[in-house]
């Protein structure tokens, strides 16, 4: 069991620029500016940095689409809405400059002149502090005109209005441009036609922080941590029934068991673990042996997602879990496509009925059918992913749902 502290060491430091500079901060930017943009992308490619927002797409491949056309934009996706995820809050609270440095390096690499931090509206205090951090970076000469010869870059903060779907990159761009935050079908990819039809590069907060680390410590260092396919350190968010919930940092590929041990162990008897956020499957205790990296989780039919781990013990009712999850999907569906708009409401209605003692046996079959249809015909990953939590609860905890419905039968009989 090994822990790393490339992010966590900032926990006890102030978020101001001086503390960050003392801890090697902005030396990565210095290195980047001494290279050509293509060399910077090469370093990120050699480090094999995979996007930390959930999709795990290689950052360098995204950036390579840059043709140097102006204007082009860098967008930092700080719309951390995935239930169970609070790592970006951690980075932006404790080491905002790590993210800002990564953004400036990214801008230099893809020849962008303007950056946006799209932060969720539920983080007003963090947004206020970020304004201050940007001012510090500007005063130190890291932002503004002529940061290096022929390179100028500035960053604006956009506060979201409260929407889960906006975490999707194309939905985020629509929201940023002042539209309803609904996704569009790719292609065109944002790197070709993003904000106002110009090339736009979108990266998650943690990904950009990793960019700073790679330029500070070298790509060899980054590849020496984690697994060959998913290198580097990773922030994991552990919540639910563990003794010390919080953000933990460990190499990619760390086992669930080790992470839960880091968080002080389970309170009571372990029953279920959800990995990857609300759109991730819910596993029984066998998930303790899973290794958390993109490749290994995909091979298990699950997702690493944002690195969220929610631990449930025997006090947790799985019918209630199903209800909470389905209500989430119904309330957050953007409404653009019919299968998701209608399907999520149906699912929520049925799950809610089961919990309220009005569940019917045919609901179970109907719910499976609904998530299948949604998986096949929804417009974006949001509607497609509903099947993961539903099918996993049905697979591993169907006995509990059955008992719930059976009990409802008795209740109804007794009432008659």
């Amino acid at each position, binding site marked *: 069991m090994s822990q790393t502290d490339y992010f966590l060491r900032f926990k006890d430091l102030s978020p101001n620029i001086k503390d960050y500079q003392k801890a090697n901060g902005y030396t990565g930017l210095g290195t980047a500016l001494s290279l050509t943009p293509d060399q910077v992308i090469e370093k990120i490619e050699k480090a094999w940095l995979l996007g930390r927002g959930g999709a795990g797409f290689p950052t360098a491949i995204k950036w390579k689409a840059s043709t140097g056309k102006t204007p082009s934009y860098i967008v930092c996706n700080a719309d*951390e*809405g*995935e*239930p*169970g*995820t*609070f790592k*970006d*809050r951690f980075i932006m609270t404790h080491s905002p400059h790590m993210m800002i440095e990564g953004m400036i390096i990214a801008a230099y690499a893809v020849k962008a002149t303007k950056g946006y931090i799209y932060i*969720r*509206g*539920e*983080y*007003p*205090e963090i947004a206020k502090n970020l304004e201050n951090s940007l001012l510090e970076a500007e005063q130190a000469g890291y932002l503004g005109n002529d940061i290096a010869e022929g390179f100028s870059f500035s960053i604006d903060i*956009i*506060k*979201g*209005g*409260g*929407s*889960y779907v906006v975490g999707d990159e194309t939905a985020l761009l629509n*929201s*940023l*441009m*002042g*539209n*309803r*935050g*609904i996704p569009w079908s790719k292609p065109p990819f944002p790197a070709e036609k993003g904000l106002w039809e110009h090339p736009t590069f979108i990266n998650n907060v943690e990904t950009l922080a990793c960019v700073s680390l790679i330029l500070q410590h070298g790509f060899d260092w980054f590849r020496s941590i984690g697994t060959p396919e998913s290198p580097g350190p990773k922030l994991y*968010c*552990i*919540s*639910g*029934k563990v003794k010390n*919930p*919080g*953000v933990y940092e460990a190499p990619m590929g760390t086992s669930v068991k080790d992470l839960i041990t880091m968080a002080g162990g389970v309170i009571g008897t372990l029953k279920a673990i*959800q990995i990857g956020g*609300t759109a991730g499957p819910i596993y029984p205790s066998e998930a303790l042996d899973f290794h958390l990296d993109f490749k290994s989780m995909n091979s298990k039919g699950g997702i690493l997602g944002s690195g*969220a781990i*929610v631990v*449930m013990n025997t006090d*947790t009712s799985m019918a*209630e*879990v199903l209800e*909470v*999850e389905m209500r*989430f999907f119904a*309330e*957050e569906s*953007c409404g653009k496509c019919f299968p998701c708009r209608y399907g999520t409401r149906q699912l929520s209605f049925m799950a809610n009925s089961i919990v309220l003692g009005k569940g019917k046996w045919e609901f179970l079959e109907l719910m499976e059918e609904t998530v299948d249809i949604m998986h096949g015909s929804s417009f974006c990953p949001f509607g497609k992913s509903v099947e993961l939590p539903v099918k996993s609860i049905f697979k591993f905890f169907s006995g509990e749902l059955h008992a719930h419905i059976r009990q409802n039968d008795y209740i109804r009989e007794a009432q008659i």
Partner: protein
Amino acid sequence: MEIAKISLKESNRENILHLFHSMQKREITKNYITATERREIAQTLGLSIAEVDGVMSFYHLFSPSPRGKYVLRICDSLSCRIGNSLEVYGYISKELGIKRGETTKDGLFTLEIVNCLGSCDTAPNMMINDKLYTNLTLDEVDTLIINCKKEKTI
């Protein structure tokens, strides 16, 4: 025009979220956007009122109808539910005599349930206007409500 008081770099459409936030928080306890303000936004950005309303209605944080001085947003996603959010909701609902989406008759409180405030390790969580309260106990909820009534909390 009131809108002139709000710092606006350009009258571009991308400022719409910023305008919604500023209008809604023109006073810290206002918590909604009036029809007049929506008309002002439409005029400033050169959009129709329907377009402005269409964008606004997409987002959970903005309200076109009056809400209480204190908007209580209780998180009820999985981690918070495991951490007893339902008990917090039930308690507040009973204390204030309102359900989800309702406002007390004195116009002081609006009760809302939201999906994730991004602080799952400190469940249960609640936001009162812009401020996040974590690891809530029912005693603390009591104190918060009393403070709001005395208008000590923002």
